[in-house]
């Protein structure tokens, strides 16, 4: 017998998958409707509501989750898939936090789902280096350099281990979608409605003034417009650059609208924070160590790119004159 409570909390798990296929639930109109609701909540608010832990609701929730995946697949759009994955991961994160006290065995089981071996060490946990590197969010908080690393194991706090599992959930969902299949008409109709929920990016407006941006910054902007999830370090670097390039906060926030986990409030707060604290632009070598330097412009910092390029052009013109 599948543990329905576990399955409903963690519908991406193998156990949940088996439970759905065993139940042989029929695709009904109400199921598609509920799935559409779940998906549109994810797209609009970035959140998926948790339901009461009732056995009848649990079985249905599993089916709803499966249909959500179908709709997202039928929509076949990176923004929808990534933003949905973020919302599902957040939902799972909330359950992980509540299950930590009440049903600690669930945490181990979710970890096992991703092949993550968690070893308790006092209040903390150790996990294998490869799992750590595969599933930690790329942010300065998780920089390996500042971690306790020993014999191939990395130490994390109890809270961090939940955050890592949440990231693993996000990666699994992102990676497993879209499913290639033929979907029913109802699902395809729902998918069409989902596509209308994608915020319209004013592509033309965001292009203005970009011609002088260095390649790394252009690439980050392009990734954002494709709803690719940028690591934290990349977002900070981009925001610092834009602040220094004279972009208004509104404009910068607009650029970030493409991010699959976009939250206007958080973005606005962070951009303002960067502006008032006068954050320094990371140097090219720092950008490189973040893995977001993509060209060898030899300008020292992305902020000098424009001058460096203009300088090079001027020198070239001078040289040509001499010839």
């Amino acid at each position: 017998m599948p543990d329905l409570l576990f399955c409903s909390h963690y519908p991406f798990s193998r156990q949940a998958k088996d439970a759905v296929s065993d139940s042989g639930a029929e695709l009904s109109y109400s199921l598609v409707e509920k799935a559409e609701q779940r998906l549109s909540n994810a797209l609009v608010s970035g959140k998926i509501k948790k339901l009461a832990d009732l056995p009848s609701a649990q079985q249905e929730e599993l089916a709803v989750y499966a249909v959500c995946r179908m709709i997202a697949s039928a929509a076949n759009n990176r923004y929808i898939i990534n933003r949905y994955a973020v919302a599902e991961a957040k939902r799972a994160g909330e359950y992980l936090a509540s299950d930590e006290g009440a049903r600690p065995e669930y945490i181990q089981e979710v970890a096992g789902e991703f092949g993550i071996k968690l070893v308790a060490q006092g209040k903390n946990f150790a996990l294998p280096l490869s799992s750590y590197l595969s599933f930690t969010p790329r942010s300065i908080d998780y920089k390996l350099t500042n971690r306790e690393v020993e014999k191939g194991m990395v130490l994390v706090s109890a809270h961090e281990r939940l955050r890592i599992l949440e990231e693993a959930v996000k990666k699994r969902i992102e990676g497993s979608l879209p499913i290639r299949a033929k979907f029913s008409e109802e699902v395809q109709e729902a998918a069409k409605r989902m596509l209308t929920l994608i915020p319209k990016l004013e592509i033309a407006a965001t292009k203005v003034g970009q011609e002088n941006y260095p390649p790394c910054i252009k690439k980050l902007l392009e990734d954002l417009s494709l709803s690719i999830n940028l690591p934290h370090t990349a977002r900070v670097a981009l925001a610092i650059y834009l602040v220094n390039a004279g972009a208004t906060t509104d404009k910068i926030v607009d650029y970030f609208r493409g991010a699959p986990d976009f939250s206007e409030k958080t973005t606005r707060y962070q951009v303002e924070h960067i502006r008032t604290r006068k954050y320094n632009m990371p140097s090219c070598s720092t950008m490189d160590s973040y893995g977001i330097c993509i060209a060898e412009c030899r300008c020292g910092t992305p902020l000098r790119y424009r001058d460096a390029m203009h300088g090079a052009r001027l020198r070239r013109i001078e040289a040509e004159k001499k010839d």
Partner: protein
Amino acid sequence: MDEKIAEPQTHHAPRTPEEEFLRRKFSSYYAKAPLTVLKPESREFGFGGWEKKIEFRHIRVRNEGELRTRLVNEAPLYISHSVAYYEFPDARPMVKKNWLSADLVFDLDAAEHSCGKFTCTHCMEKVKQEAQQLIEEFLLSDFGFSKSELSINFSGSRGYHVHVRSDAVASLDREARREIADYVTGTGLLFDRLFWKDGKKFFGPKPTQGGFGGKFARAFLKRLDDEEFALSISRKLKKQEERDKLRSSIQQGNYDNIGIANREEKLQDKFLQMKLTLAGRIDANVTADTSKLIRMADSLHGGSGFAAKTVQTLDDFEPMRDAPIFNEGELKVKVTEAVPALAIRDFSFGPYSPGATATLPMACAVYLLCKKAAVLA
């Protein structure tokens, strides 16, 4: 030995007699050389010539036999292969190769402390120590790889390559590998993350702990034996009792139980200084690059004529003794630029002024030809 080495159809200038000579030598080596590259059929190969270390890339071989045939026939002056394993190693652009996994590699080079074009034993010794530090303190101790997962080879010039072949890291992406490289080089290491204030107390890493924190604590405790070092932290540490007191407190992670003036500033200062010696010196870009082409172990380096020898025990390896492999015969060469005093396989030669001619043991002559510091006389 007289058959001509196949010349690919290109628009290059005709080969010089020196290049022809070296290619013939290299070809004879490859006829019998150990080919130690793992799964050659899944790698992309790159061949280099007189002008460029990688002239041709996206080369695929079906098996070891084909690799040997090509090496004997074409005798490239440099041979490198991808750290990655691909489904279609010769496909282009890169994405079509279908990346499957990759070795994790570390590149150590003496270039940083190098004194010039010619090999300097002092620099070579230094880089060997750095390779040892990388292996002992990072790869085995911190990352927990086993010795059997590591394979070390001389670069053929002035460095070493360490290849890690472990399922645990084979599928890591660029970003994850960048984290590993940053860890080894101490990039992004922050004092504030390892030390913190708690009321009047000042805490930091314990010597028993893993990571850079533990490395620092252990090194710091050791350095306290040095009176000059101790006094630069506090005059109070002139007394042995005070030193012992501080030392036992650091064992518990408490860095100040003796009242150090400006302790935060001083500790941070020491931390920044010591971080440099605790960190490894590797080329981080090589480690992070999942499609890097790297010199094939046991192939010849066209800039020295030395073999990129697989090394069993670093301690026992002497590059200037073990890497030269053309150890038969002599050759007369004419030196074309100033060459300092050198020693290869215990044979001392030089210094030479431009224009000098000398009949040298083959390895020394090949070395000067490869350095483009001499021509056939």
